[in-house]
């Protein structure tokens, strides 16, 4: 089992997201996280999703996704080559006696505390998923009241640029 990060460039159409989630649902692939946003080209959206499976499953996901007419590019992100980022917001129960300790943890992880209230505080952290996991491991000994993560988004380092390709011969 690997956890693959897959980036897609897709046409910015109304049904494209449901088409992709339908494909995953139909074939039994599990999406762990999904981010979507418009790109510098308003006609194109970028989706980054993470899915679990053995190599054959991941390969099938890529090949089946490529067949969708509105999908213009698919690539698996190499965790060592690409810049991976995810945003975490977590609300932790904290009375006055615990605040200092939590602040220390935040300092080490370069997380910021963006809200204080009498009984809780909200931390914000941006980073690689592994860093966020590490941060949450530490916070685990406190009482986590609420947590949300955006899911990972990724971009290649250096000169490599993901561009739209012509996968389907029907457009020849």
């Amino acid at each position, binding site marked *: 089992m690997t956890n693959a990060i897959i980036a897609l460039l897709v046409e910015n159409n109304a049904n494209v997201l449901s088409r992709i989630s339908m494909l995953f649902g139909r074939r039994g692939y599990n999406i762990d996280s999904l981010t979507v946003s418009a790109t510098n080209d308003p006609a194109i959206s970028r989706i980054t999703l993470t899915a679990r499976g053995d190599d054959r499953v991941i390969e099938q996901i890529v090949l089946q996704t490529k067949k969708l007419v509105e999908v213009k590019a698919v690539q698996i992100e190499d965790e060592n080559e690409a810049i991976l980022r995810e945003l975490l917001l977590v609300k932790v129960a904290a009375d006055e006696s615990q605040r200092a300790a939590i602040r220390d943890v935040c300092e080490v992880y370069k997380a910021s505390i963006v809200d204080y209230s009498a009984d809780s505080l909200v931390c914000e952290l941006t980073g690689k998923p592994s860093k966020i996991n590490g941060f949450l491991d530490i916070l685990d000994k406190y009482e986590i009241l609420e947590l949300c993560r955006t899911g990972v988004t990724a971009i290649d380092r250096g000169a490599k640029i993901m561009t739209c390709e012509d996968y389907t011969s*029907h457009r020849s």
Partner: protein
Amino acid sequence: MKLTGAEIVTEVLIEQGVTDIFGYPGGAALNIYEALYNRQDKIHHYLAAHEQGATHAADGYARATGKTGVMIATSGPGSTNTVTGIATAYLDSVPMVVITANVGTSLIGKDSFQEVFIAGITQPITKHNYAVRDISRLADTLREAFKIAGSGRRGPVLIDIPKDITAQTYEYTPAPKWEEKKSESVHTQALATIAADIKKAKRPVICFGGGVISANAGEELSELIKKTQIPACHTIMGTGIIGFGDELDMGIIGMHGSMTANHAIDECDLLLALGTRFSDRVALKLSDFAPHAKIIQIDIDESEIGKNVLVDMAIVGDLKAELSALVPMVEAVPRPGWMSAIAGWREIDRRVYDRDYDGIRPMDIMEVIGEVTNGEAIVSTDVGQHQIWAAQFCKKTKPRGFLTSGGLGTMGFGYGAAIGAQVAYPDTPVFHITSDGSFHMNMNEACTAVSYNLPVITVILDNKVLGMVYQWQTSFYNKHYMATTVERKSDYQKLAEGFGADSYRCETREEFEKAVKAALAAKRPTWIVCPIERSERVLPMISAGDTVREAIME
């Protein structure tokens, strides 16, 4: 030239070479039907009894011709009735364009009368679909639909058009008919490796599927088989390329495949898999499929490589181009040991198939059809025992001459498909092989055959049970015949008369032969009822997860 949306629909159909369409009108489709009224000189519309039948007819038309079949339905139930037909075409990679009318754009999303989101419903069963929301995109959307349906791995495309868009007007600019430009380049190096593998192989087998028919590569495959003298088997979707009785034809593979084909796959050292996706009815036990073979797969769809069975080598490409490049590279290698092993298995099959039997046997029916029509008939089937018998025993066939719902297994497919094929080829004998179970699903299409005087010959194998399920209950459920011993009182001959069709009842091979000849001479829609023993089973049979060594033979 300014045209209404409905006129743009008909003009693009004409531009794309469409001459025949199947459909059913309704409120939302009225503008399109008005445009069709004015273009009857170019487009023949065939009204079916039910949208499912119309969809199967467009599918059968496409399977028989290789052209893209076209079907039109109205909104709501009209469009949901196409769903089984679309899924049938999708699972068998059949090129089809389905146009559904929807309620006007101002009514969409409001749960209006006869409104459904058919584009959403058909997402997982179409190659692609469109919900048109802007008349300026209509013509190009239709053109793109034909491109997508008729290129690469074929498949159905649905276009949903709201009624107001069919009434609006927009500038229409004619465009040429789209034709697929096949790439000329082939994988020469990989083909050379395959040629070398063939030369080395001691026990080679070719297994082919519907992809060969889709690619119109039947001739190239036949040449390859003849030149290399490699024995070949096929999936049910590959039926028609080589005929039962050809020396190198081992018949069907898989669950109801021949012992010859299944033993050969089990023992081969080289397996060339051409245009086949190793479905669960073919590769019954994935871990034990062709266990001694180097498996080489050629398919047009990259996602089929290694999807079900891991292969040692693959080419993603057009089978016609790849095979015609491969043929000159190969040579015949005599393999007397391998051929005599195959001859031995053939004897087992002969014993399994040639069972003694009072009355008319399924084998007789298919043999007579083959003999009387000299293998020129198009045979369409429904789904169940009769379907497998038809595939097992159709003696002489041709590519695009055997139409069956292999992937989805749609009971009720056959009549519509036969009607579509008969529309495409008015002078070719078209047989619809069915059974009492399947026929009750869509026998209403008899009215279509009669209305247009399409001389489809329906052969009903009547064993008074839902035979395939009954067979499984016999073998695996202690003969607990739940809901399969139907006590229907339907009188097929009276029904035929009621619809305006001819009919015969035949209890012997001789009677059947006479009836077929009479029906062919009369050139009228005909039903031939043949009583079959309910104990008659489809044999041999290998259950899912089993191998040829566990085959049920009697």
